[in-house]
């Protein structure tokens, strides 16, 4: 279980996370929903040690996490909005790099793990290709495969469908659901309301650095009026 407790962060004088708290269980998909600039991506970046926090605590399985050592412990993985795949490496090397250099796997073993992941994500025939030779959907799948290679327990996905068409959004939603079913704890930051309909998740609507309303996707789509703020955002209503 991941517990984020009263995390606050300011960029200069602008508050981006305001006593942000969240509880996510194993196998759960937590979707942080909201427009740009409400702090969705920042919380994912904080969890991945890409941003520091001013105050607050983060626990995993009731044990406080030292965020500074989180990358070395491989507790968490991240799929970036722009994928951030290594352009100068092949598809296979994007996965084997961390396996060989960080996890000290042999070249043979790293390639075996990479091939399993690439096969699972339908990219086995692209293993010798470079990133520029992949489509948007293929890049997205490779970014997921690369993040999973280090076997994290928590997977963060920043705007995973922002550059994908509806069909690929469905594929990504299926991938996320499959990972949750496998026991991964997944945090998704998105403003893509189409993704919500395709996921069995908990929706957390954010504004000004904190959660202002939450609901499971099933509850929300069954009775939208009960959740006026999420409903307003999903329907795109302007006051």
């Amino acid at each position, binding site marked *: 279980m991941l517990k984020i407790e009263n995390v606050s962060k300011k960029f200069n004088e602008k508050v981006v996370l305001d006593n942000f708290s969240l509880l996510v269980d194993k196998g759960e998909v937590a979707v942080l929903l909201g427009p740009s600039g409400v702090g969705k991506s920042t919380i994912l970046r904080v969890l991945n040690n890409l941003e520091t926090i001013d105050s607050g605590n983060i626990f995993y399985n009731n044990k406080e996490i030292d965020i500074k050592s989180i990358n070395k412990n491989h507790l968490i993985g991240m799929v970036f909005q722009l994928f951030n*795949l290594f352009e*100068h490496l092949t598809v296979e090397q994007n996965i084997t790099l961390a396996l060989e250099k*960080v996890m000290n796997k042999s070249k043979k073993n790293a390639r075996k793990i990479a091939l399993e992941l690439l096969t699972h994500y339908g990219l086995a025939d692209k293993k010798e290709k470079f990133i520029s*030779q992949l489509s948007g959907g293929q890049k997205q799948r490779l970014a997921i495969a690369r993040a999973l290679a280090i076997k994290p327990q928590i997977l963060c996905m920043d705007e995973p469908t922002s550059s994908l068409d509806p069909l690929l959004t469905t594929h990504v939603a299926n991938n996320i659901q499959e990972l949750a079913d496998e026991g991964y704890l997944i945090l998704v930051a998105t403003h893509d309301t189409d993704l919500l309909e395709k996921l069995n998740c908990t929706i957390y609507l954010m504004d000004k650095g904190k959660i202002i309303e939450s609901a499971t996707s099933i509850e929300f789509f069954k009775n939208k009026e009960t959740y006026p703020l999420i409903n307003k955002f999903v329907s795109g209503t302007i006051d």
Partner: protein
Amino acid sequence: MIDIGLLIKSLPQLLKGASVSIQIAALSCSIGLTLGTIFGLIQSGKNKLLKFLVGIYVTLFRGTPMLIQLTFAFFVLPELGISIPAFWTAVIAIGLNSAAYVSQIIRSGIKAVSKGQLEAAQVLGLSKFQATRYILLPQAIRTVVPALGNEFITLVKDSSLASVITVVELTKEGSRIVSTTYDALTIYTGVALIYLIMTSTLSFVMGKIEQRMSQHVKN
């Protein structure tokens, strides 16, 4: 008129000089590339003191003529008790000069690598050194291969300055032959042609390296 007979007769001596020129260029290139990469990384880093020191180094070596640096190293350093053979004086002085330029080329390459690449490396657990070694430098160098190629070509031509501190390289061999044959047109045409062949070959090789290193952007 160019005396072809004299040119052919002088060729072994000129080629001997050319081989010295190549040695100076190759060795100073190694110094320039190694130090230049380290300095480029320092200038892209966060250590203010080191950045300041490298800044002074770059200003000094870029702001004074290489000829002055060479003659300074050859004539002034021995007075301070530092005596190095002329060949190595040339190699070190040209190498140090090149490092100043290479550092700026590498720095621009590092700037061109997106921040996201290093963030991805960090999230995967790579240390700062590993991220630099496997992600930052390979990408930065790929971007600046054409600029580095130009720097290396300049280096080959600059090796001719070693002639002023008594190193018998291609230019010096040429002037030695002219002093006995008095046929400046023939000999210096030959010298120029050999330089042209050397720089064209280097240009071709750099083109191939550039092609090879940019295969990741091919579709």
